[in-house]
């Protein structure tokens, strides 16, 4: 009986957790459906919801102030959402999809620092809800009354949203726009207004979802990325744009987690399996399974090909004499760098970081640009390379160069597995699947104390004597990074590169001329993983230690930002973007506590000024304006 009681208690706990998850995911899904923007800042809205609710309770007064404070938080976040849409997103609806994504990444940074500035770095736990402080006995166990309230909120909001979407003109327009927003415009509906309203509504739901967690979960600055990951999973599992699907998925995931906690450590055939450790990955496992089996989600519908298929990408430019001269000058400068900067040894240290970032970003660009596969989990291969190097070194004591050669193969092996699944999908779904695998890899590394050092990571990964000097290590890094970038470029200009681009531009036509599209994409994915792994291995030896952060989603996002910042349509893009990002990160972080906001602000300005990326912009200045984009 007691086992049953604790099982029921965990199930109820899962239901309570599902409600907030559903609110966030429903908002994300609505916004994506209508605006086609994948709003990475949605988790930030959730986080702001908790913080604002915390302050509002304090301001209105604890006790009776609790319920109004929830509303204040929801409305405040809704207003923030509306402002974001009006001031930022509205200006970039015609920009390529990935640029919109970059803008929302930048928002995450800005909002995080705004919260840091307003509420400080400490965790803040709110008061309990008046009237619901006690607990209710269920099967002889005490269950918090507030959790029962939360269990009701999920279906309640689902019902209200359903009424809004089916019984009002606004809802009808939202559903119509989710299918064909251009046609809605041609029927006289001002999309700008509709988009603002939807964005505000979605943000409000996220804010409410956060505020409702006030007594259960402390407000922290990590909630944003944590929440967005979970919300993406729910939206994908439930089916993009399906609100009931989001509820079902939130329920499924919350319950699976609850069951894992309930199971605890179980012995199966003599092996102790800790199910409670699975809670970090269970949602990503579910998402991976759903994406492979039913990519459009549980209650979603297979999507028709997107109507507005972006601008056709220009062919890659073969390097002309100007570009060659610039490259040669750059290489010379890099070779001479240690000599030039002998007065300030830090320059070489920073240069190593930049070079590693360049290789990482170039490998990501290799699949994102020419192959059109937008990986959101590229840090997995960086991390596999880094951990591969550290573990090989410690376990075998092999010489560093051998380790440096073997570690990328570890990453490539990971990419073989993930790539096999990923090339079966495209677009957002592919992005989400790569993210899911990366999160699974992260969770394993994070929890496997015996093998990976768990959350502490591994230390003592130093290169041998002859590379101990930073300048020597710089020389090695420079040689390997140059070689890596050169090889990746050569591949793009070889027949295999043509096949990649053909597969990106039209799967059907590429198929028709005899290209095995999936195979080409798979090989490309593995090549990209291999070089990301090399970057990771170089990174491990340059720092002497390695932590799970190296394959965290934050690192993947860094890579995306570098590629997008530089511009996805040029080969110089990832090089410029990685250098700029790493340098900005370094300088800004040393000059202010609020480096994220500065960085985010700079990215936003760049996005608004140069929707083609920095390198794309520079190329335009040098080579003149080509095929003018839409005048609208």
């Amino acid at each position, binding site marked *: 009986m007691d086992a049953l009681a604790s099982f029921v208690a965990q199930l109820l706990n899962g239901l309570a957790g599902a409600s907030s998850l559903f609110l966030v995911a429903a908002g994300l899904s609505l916004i994506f459906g209508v605006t086609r923007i994948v709003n990475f800042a949605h988790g930030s809205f959730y986080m702001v919801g908790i913080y604002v609710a915390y302050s509002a309770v304090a301001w209105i007064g604890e006790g009776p102030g609790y319920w109004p404070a929830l509303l204040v938080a929801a409305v405040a976040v809704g207003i923030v959402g509306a402002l974001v849409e009006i001031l930022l997103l509205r200006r970039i609806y015609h920009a390529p999809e990935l640029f919109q994504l970059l803008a929302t990444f930048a928002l995450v940074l800005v909002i995080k620092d705004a919260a840091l500035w307003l509420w400080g770095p400490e965790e803040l736990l709110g008061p309990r809800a008046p009237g619901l402080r006690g607990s209710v006995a269920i099967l002889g166990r005490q269950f918090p009354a507030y959790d029962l309230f939360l269990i009701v909120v999920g279906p309640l909001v689902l019902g209200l949203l359903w009424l809004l979407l089916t019984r009002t003109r606004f809802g009808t327009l939202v559903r119509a726009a989710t299918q064909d927003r251009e046609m809605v415009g*041609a029927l006289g509906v001002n999309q700008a207004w509709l988009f603002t309203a939807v964005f505000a509504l979605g943000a409000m739901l996220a804010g409410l979802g956060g505020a409702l967690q006030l007594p259960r979960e402390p407000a922290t600055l990590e909630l944003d990325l944590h929440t967005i990951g979970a919300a993406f999973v729910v939206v994908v599992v439930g089916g993009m744009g399906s609100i009931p699907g989001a509820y079902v998925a939130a329920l499924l995931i919350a319950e699976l987690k609850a069951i894992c906690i309930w199971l605890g450590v179980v012995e199966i055939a003599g092996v102790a399996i800790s199910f409670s450790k699975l809670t970090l990955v269970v949602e990503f496992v579910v998402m991976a399974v759903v994406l492979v089996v039913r990519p459009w989600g549980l209650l979603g519908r297979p999507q028709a090909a997107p109507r507005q298929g972006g601008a056709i990408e220009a062919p890659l430019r073969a390097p002309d004499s100007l570009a060659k001269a610039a490259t040669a000058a750059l290489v010379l400068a890099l070779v001479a760098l240690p000599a030039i900067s002998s007065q300030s040894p830090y320059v070489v240290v920073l240069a190593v970081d930049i070079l590693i970032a360049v290789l990482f970003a170039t490998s990501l660009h290799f699949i994102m640009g020419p192959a059109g596969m937008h990986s959101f989990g590229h840090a997995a291969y960086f991390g596999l390379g880094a951990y591969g190097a550290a573990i090989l070194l410690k376990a075998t004591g092999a010489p560093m160069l051998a380790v440096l050669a073997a570690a990328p193969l570890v990453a490539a092996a990971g990419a073989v597995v993930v790539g096999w699944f990923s090339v079966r999908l495209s677009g957002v779904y592919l992005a989400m699947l790569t993210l899911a695998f990366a999160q699974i890899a992260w969770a394993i590394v994070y929890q496997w104390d015996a093998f990976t050092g768990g959350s502490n990571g591994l230390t003592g990964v130093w290169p041998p004597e002859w590379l101990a000097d930073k300048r020597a290590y710089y020389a090695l890094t420079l040689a390997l990074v140059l070689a890596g970038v050169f090889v990746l470029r050569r591949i793009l200009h070889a027949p295999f590169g043509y096949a990649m681009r053909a597969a990106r531009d039209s799967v059907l036509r590429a198929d028709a001329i005899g290209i095995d599209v999936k195979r080409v994409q798979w090989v490309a994915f593995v090549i990209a993983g291999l070089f990301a792994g090399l970057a990771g291995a170089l990174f491990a030896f340059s720092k002497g230690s390695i932590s799970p952060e190296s394959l965290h989603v934050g690192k993947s996002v860094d890579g995306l930002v570098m590629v997008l910042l530089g511009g996805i349509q040029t080969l110089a893009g990832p090089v410029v973007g990685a250098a700029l990002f790493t340098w900005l990160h370094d300088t800004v972080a040393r000059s202010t506590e609020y480096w994220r906001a500065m960085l985010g602000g700079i990215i936003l300005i760049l996005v608004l000024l140069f929707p083609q990326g920095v390198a794309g912009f520079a190329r335009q200045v040098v080579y003149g304006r080509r095929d003018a984009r839409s*005048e609208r």
Partner: protein
Amino acid sequence: MSAAGPSQGARPLPREGASEAARAVPAGTGHAEVLLDVHALSAWYGAAQILFDVDLAVRRGEVVALMGRNGAGKSTTLKAIMGMVDRRRGTLAFMGSDISTAEPHQVAQAGLGFVPEDRRIFTDLTVAENLEVGRQPPRRWSDGSEASTWTPERLYRLFPNLGGMPDRPGGRMSGGEQQMLTVARTLMGNPYLVLLDEPSEGVAPVIVEQMAHMILELKGQGVSILLSEQNMHFAELVSDRAYVLEKGQIRYTGTMADLAADDEVRRAYLSL
């Protein structure tokens, strides 16, 4: 015809026989107010220029056919007027106001309705909901008289098929029913002028006939129509005047009757 609502149009029209009604309007109808005036319109998809300095006009009360073979640029002309192409150049005036740089929703709000050739029904929405998306407030002509105002009930009378299935999702209708719905949806905006893209394409002959009736009925209500069409017979049945497009340029302008009689032009630019 008998199912249609009461005529509120200020222009009494002879109603005996469709083609008589069409031909009854004097060639050129030079006295009526110009609703839509298109001058030197060029349009692009990406880097490809599709239209080259197209000139055309539609007057109040007219049905004007825009003829041409497949790929001549008929649909592009209509979309360019709406502002739904990648890039356009030229002067566009609708009822005296400049719409050369207007967004599609502004054009629609000005009273210019658009019926796309690929229908673009909202398949997840019911018939009634599809109509709701198109709804706009009633309008008045500049002289103060009331423009034709459409309600779902009136439209269900005009298209009895739709009236029998207001709660059916758009995705579960036949091609002909979808064709009616896309027209009805645009009429919910109470347009002065409808840009109608190949209503006779790919539907059964009985639907084609209904479409012809519908166009004449609209005309009777005082709604003007710019009709993109390849089907000479259909165009002849309903239109007053015609333009012929080829490779994005206007090759012929004249009355429908003259075009119908001009074998040379028809052989050169139309597939007959």
